[in-house]
């Protein structure tokens, strides 16, 4: 079997898009110095609200808008809890992930009168792009995808430019690296953190919509199945840098897609299930090992704290 071809890349792009949206959100929050671990819950919430509103209104795009809006509102829990009221972001995230899981399951029954899966005939999904039909490579890459797939790629590039080339991006980087310093120059750190958290919410809304209205047209309980956690790993792997986040998501997606192909060649399903996680872990170890070595030479005592969750959100230590 041909392991890398256009179809393969297209498949990876498609299946990575939801993760990419969430991870971009997580990376921006990381830039602002806030560890956003609530991506899984937000993605799930986005997927649910997209399907619900698409079903009610008969318009998939209304579903997308609703996903963005309601997930942004949902992310307000993190903004309010972890930023405004300075509660531990990890604890708030644990609560939010559980809330999303419970609430989507609950509302699936109460609002849509379904359990398990909701995929009625006539549920409007997002249309595939046909603009690029006939364009050689791009057509094959993006042809069968929805608009939200190229949008995710564009947003990764845009986020990178925003962070690295704009004044606001410079401020954002400062906020995450040294909040006291930013404060002393009059930057209201919580405002940046709230804004990025809400932005991450909006991105997760898009990611969720792509999952439930783009990739497929259905909602199932817990349909994110850990994609938000993969996004968290990608954020960490990329040290909050948007273009590297893109790379990390594609790496994970490729590992998964290779896994499916290898399954077809007789590799046990459980092994191919584990592969993307192991690949991510190995790459993560390789990248952090360099950081650790450098720290060890510079300051062995400080290096002891290099893996502390606190240290993780500060990008400068991961360079």
């Amino acid at each position, binding site marked *: *079997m041909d392991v890398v*071809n256009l*179809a*393969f890349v297209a*498949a990876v792009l*498609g*299946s990575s898009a*939801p993760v990419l949206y969430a991870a971009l959100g997580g990376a921006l929050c990381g830039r602002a110095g806030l560890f956003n671990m609530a991506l899984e819950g937000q993605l799930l919430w986005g997927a649910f609200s997209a399907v619900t509103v698409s079903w009610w209104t008969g318009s998939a795009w209304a579903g997308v808008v609703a996903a963005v809006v309601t997930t942004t509102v949902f992310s307000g829990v993190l903004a309010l809890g972890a930023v405004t009221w300075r509660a531990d972001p990890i604890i708030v995230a644990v609560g939010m992930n559980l809330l999303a899981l419970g609430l989507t399951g609950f509302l*699936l029954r109460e609002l849509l009168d*379904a*359990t*398990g*899966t*909701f*995929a009625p*005939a006539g549920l409007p999904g997002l249309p*595939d792009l046909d603009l690029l039909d006939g364009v050689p490579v791009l057509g094959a890459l993006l042809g*069968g995808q929805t608009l939200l797939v190229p949008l995710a790629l564009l947003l990764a590039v845009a986020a990178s430019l925003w962070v690295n080339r704009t004044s606001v991006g410079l401020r954002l980087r400062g906020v995450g690296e040294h909040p006291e310093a930013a404060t002393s120059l009059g930057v209201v750190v919580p405002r940046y953190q709230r804004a990025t958290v809400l932005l991450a919410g909006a991105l997760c809304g898009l990611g969720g919509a792509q*999952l439930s209205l783009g*990739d*497929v*047209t*259905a909602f*199932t*309980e*817990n*349909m994110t*199945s*850990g994609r938000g956690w993969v996004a968290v790993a990608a954020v960490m792997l990329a040290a909050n840098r948007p273009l590297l986040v893109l790379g990390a998501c594609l790496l994970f997606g490729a590992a*998964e*897609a290779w896994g*499916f*192909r290898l*399954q*077809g060649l007789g590799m*046990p*399903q*459980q092994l*191919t*299930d584990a592969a993307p996680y192991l690949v991510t872990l190995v790459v993560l170890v390789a990248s952090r090992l360099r950081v650790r070595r450098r720290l060890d030479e510079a300051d062995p005592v400080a290096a002891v704290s290099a893996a502390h969750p606190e240290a993780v959100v500060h990008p400068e230590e991961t360079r």
Partner: protein
Amino acid sequence: ADTGSGDSGGNAAGGETAGSMIVITPNPVGGNNFLELAVEGAEAVAAEQDLDVRVFESSDPTSIQQNVEAAVREKPDVVVGLSFSLQDAFATVPVDNPDQQFLLVDGCPAPQPENVTCAAFREHEATYLAGVEAGLLSRSKKIGVVAALDTPFIRRWVDPFAAGAASVDATVTSTALFVGGDNPFGDPARGRAQAQVLADGGADQVLAAASGSNVGAFEVAASGGFQAYGVDVNECESAPGQVVDNVLKHVDVALASAVTEILAGNAGGAKVYGLAEDGVGLTALEDDVASSGCLIADHPDVIEQVQQVRQQIIDGTVTVDDPAAG
């Protein structure tokens, strides 16, 4: 699917009913054809026999036991368990409650307590027939299966499909992909990704046996990736014009007749439904195939050949290996 508390029973009449039954599922019913059909059968027999019916959905293996015990406390006329996942609970609880009647559909505890009636299926026989169709219809000589998990039981929808195809055309190769992951029975996106892998690999006949993850596979079929086969019920409308046939399992019929038997006092025993008993089959073999919306209706020659193989299986001239027999 849950018809709720006692006073809002499944029978249309309302008010006092002649009796009651409780159905326990191993998973949420929604999106699971097998469970939906079983519950339908339960509701049908309840209406017929004037029974109050309640459904207890389990969420995981642990809650099954809880639900079985809760059901027994309600003392219904019969406690119905759906699927082999309840086998363990049905091996122990009935022994402690000798006066309660139990029916296990799709499995049988060993040893079988006296107050447990069993109804099981030989799904592999029908899968084999679907494989025969795929073998005859495949142009690319590549077929595939998307299944939820790689377990011996689920392989009943995998291995016989390949065997059936190979029996009519030895050059056909079959690829099986398993959804796996965190949520194998409800991850349509992964289901779709795997179906797409099969389509990209050239498979033109694909059996979708992944429960809630099937939605994704049918989407690939609908976009022309391949022709699909459904499982348990008629899924030809899931991807109109792209579904060839379905591996049917008449769990509703089996359940209803078993309940009727138990209420009539003929409890016990283990009935296994195969092709011979008409417990499993294909849409192609039904009377209403013409109006089913399935592609197979356009291939009377194939149907004819399938009918012959069916007879051979019933006669024993063709044996289908049971992957779950281990």
